[in-house]
């Protein structure tokens, strides 16, 4: 398998890149190895586990089985592109607050799937959350805390949650405490 390199034009998290990439490379390889965006993970490299999920044109996409040439010109968003200058995306904060990331390796992919869900459906029922995340394997949590986090983030995006407290502050503890008594 002799590889040749060609130029590919990608727009990742709003940044436009012109990159020399081996022609057989996947989007995942390009993100991780060429751009150094290592937030997106490789779990199986064959489209089974969902750890490599990114958003292409807003749709959850398995980057490990997507040839990089197929996404030329399409907006790509990775876990690194979910946060803004104002701080983490409400999903990212809610994952932290609710213990939804244990080892954290599936987390970037799950966040991308969840972000796409909340774009489409700001008030998902639990079954809709389960359905939306069914392509992302998590081996740590049993998914329960992930549902809590997605629902908490959805509430905040709808303007129903409190503003984000600093980690470890009294308000932070209070907030997580409230979450528990609500259940």
């Amino acid at each position: 398998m002799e590889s040749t390199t060609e130029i590919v034009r990608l727009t990742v998290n709003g940044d436009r890149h012109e990159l020399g990439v081996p022609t057989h490379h996947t989007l995942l390889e390009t993100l991780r190895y060429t751009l150094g965006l290592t937030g997106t993970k490789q779990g199986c490299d064959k489209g089974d586990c969902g750890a490599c999920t990114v958003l292409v044109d807003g749709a959850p996409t398995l980057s490990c089985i997507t040839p990089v040439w197929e996404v030329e010109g399409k907006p790509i968003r990775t876990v690194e592109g979910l946060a803004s200058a104002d701080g983490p995306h409400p999903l990212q904060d809610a994952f932290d607050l609710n213990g939804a990331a244990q080892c954290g390796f599936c987390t970037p992919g799950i966040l991308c799937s969840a972000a796409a869900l909340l774009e489409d459906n700001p008030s998902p029922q639990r079954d809709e959350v389960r359905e939306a995340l069914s392509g992302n394997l998590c081996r740590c949590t049993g998914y329960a805390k992930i549902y809590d986090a997605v629902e908490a983030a959805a509430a905040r995006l709808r303007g129903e949650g409190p503003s984000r407290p600093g980690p470890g502050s009294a308000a932070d503890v209070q907030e997580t405490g409230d979450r528990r008594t609500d259940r």
Partner: protein
Amino acid sequence: MTTPGGNPQSDLNLIGRPMRKVEGLDKSTGRAVYTDDIVLPGMLHGKILRSPHPHARIVSIDTRRAEALEGVHAVITGQDMATPYGIIPWTPDEYPLCTDRVRYIGDGVAAVAAVDEDTAIRAMDLIDVEYEELPGFHDPHAALEADGGSPYVHEAKKEGWNGNITKIVKLEFGEVDAGMDDADVVVEGEYFFEGTTHAPIEPHCAIGLYEGNGKLTVWSATQVPHYLHRELARVLDVDPAKVRVIQPLVGGAFGGKSEPFDLEFCVGKLAMITGRPVKILYTREEVFYSHRGRHPFHMKYRTGATADGKLTSVDAKILLDGGAYASFGLVTTYYSGQLLCAPYEMPAYRFDSTRVYTNKPACGPKRGHGSVQPRFAFEVQIDKLAERVGIDPIEFRRRNFIGSNTRTVNELRVTSNGFLECLASVERASEWADKFRRLPFGRGIGIAGSTYISGTNYPIYPNEMPQSGVQMQIDRSGRVAVFSGASEIGQGCDSVVAYIAAEELGVSLDHVRVMRGDTDFTPVDLGAYSSRVTFMVGNAAIDAARKLKRMIQEAVAEAWEVRPGEVLLSGGLAHWAPDTERQMPIREAFNLAEAKFGTLGSTGSYNTPKDVHGEYRGGTIGASPAYSFTAHAAEVEVDMETGIVDVKKVWVAHDCGRALNPVLVEGQMEGSAYMGFAEALMEEHIFKDADHGRAGLHNAPSLLDYRIPTSLDTPELESLIVESIDPEGPYGAKEAGEGPLHPSIPAIANAIYDAVGVRMDRLPFSPPRMWRAIEAAREAGSLRKPAAPKPTGAPVGA
């Protein structure tokens, strides 16, 4: 939350409350660094060539064609690292690369370092290995009965032994035969637990770096940096003082990364040869073949009870299918029997366990090491006994409760014990009384209980040093730095030491930094296994923090001219207890202490009790400073047409001593119950036989074919934390990471019986197996709702 003994918060400020994890936002923003995320300048990529044969002699290896390929920097074989190793010091039976024999499909024979991964893959095809195939052992019974007609998997461990035997353990406590005679009912059962594997989402990965001064650094996704440090030094013949192991964040492990692996030695050796950093990342297939997962167990149990539901005797015989190498097998063989003796009182107990080698990937420890399989069998036995004597199975378990502050029949010391509260919690939450034997045919509810260790009193290699150490330092900005060698694999041990530092020293959580996982600057912790970490590193952190706290109290007391004991540290302030309006910012308190004592730092350590175990060979194995307890209730619906078992809900009650952070404890409980559910219904780590492909070939080495539960498969889980406040645990905490897995499987098995009257004694309860069992019961006329037991307390006949 059930809290025996009053308010658990007492005078604690943070401990016991929901808190963020120290690395939580790093993980959710993609900043968290795992081993494969690290790229070093000039880094080469390695690959390991693996055996296509389950059992063969290596006649020759010719690496010349590979070495000649442009871009290849080095090729190594077994002869380059011909020192055997093994996680258990008494059973070193594997080499980083095979020296003269391969023992399973996937055994490593050579490794390549090349300029990139593609070149390394091409180079592997150019390595010429000549094999002489040998007959393989694929079935543990055949391995046990082998007569030496063909080469055993290994040389005999003892003279006259079959070389396929790793370990035999026979232990007897009390009068087992007399106990059977005393029983009004004896139940015999035969059970089979198919092996399962860990399947962490992060594949194993390691990077080696060898510097000109002779220093070797290895980054690895390992659960045991300290043991890796020792074995790298020994096998690669490098001064241990010149070996550094760095453990980046680990993307899941579950026991699957708890011993040294071939890639860690290979990156080290290849880096030493090439002078360049070398990375090896396993493919998903390699993760399946490296395995070290749950052993297949063939189990026979005889269990006796009196008519009023008291156990009289337990007799077990177990054959463990170990695969090609010993791994932790010596311990697994002991654990298969030693960890069964609570939470029920057993007047007499015997077990006879044998582990054999077979030509399959080595089995080892998976979450609930060695005790998940017997717990399945035993809790089903109890269900059968309870039915035979006509007692509700929860009541049966209550009647046999071993109690707290007692000894098991095999002389393990049990201290705190919240098992009765666990039973009561799931009984109440599941509405057991309304459901057991009362749900419509096809629906059922089941119960099971269990215990597990919070670490082991004796480390893997004998030594008198602490099992865990922590260093802390305080700086002038009001910040606390914790140096912890404990292995963060997602369970939250970095956060635990931060919570403790914040609790003891009165700072907010975001003023604590945790420096972690680097043998150059963090003290030794033995690793993330046997559910030891929170208990041990937690105690070490308390020790370190309280030494600093005393200095700060003394310095502030001197300034205020009060007694040191009256100075409280909390909420970012130092207060005077008699008048809390008298206060100063914690930073000023730290500065006073630094002025008085000099630079502020401390060390803390924890070592286990060494005088509490049975005085018999093996009596130290299973001895733990504290035991956790769990009960599950599971509700299922069985589809008669398809054999699909739909688990509606699992209620999980777990006595974790004290929940230092209930969110993390619930996460461990839910993750454990999920994993047990998966083993009950879905997962089998199996290999083809000669009639169905190539013998010894993994049946399904992918995450599509080896089915682990998705969000749609996983049942609803409800966590019910029970706190028994352990006398020795940090703030009373015990383990929560492995214990809550155990009852999942038998609770589901017992629920299936309640639903349709069919006993499932062979795992997993997959649709074909369930369907066949239903059809067999239909033909036998036994497919029906089992009869309800007599009301509790009613007289029972034999």
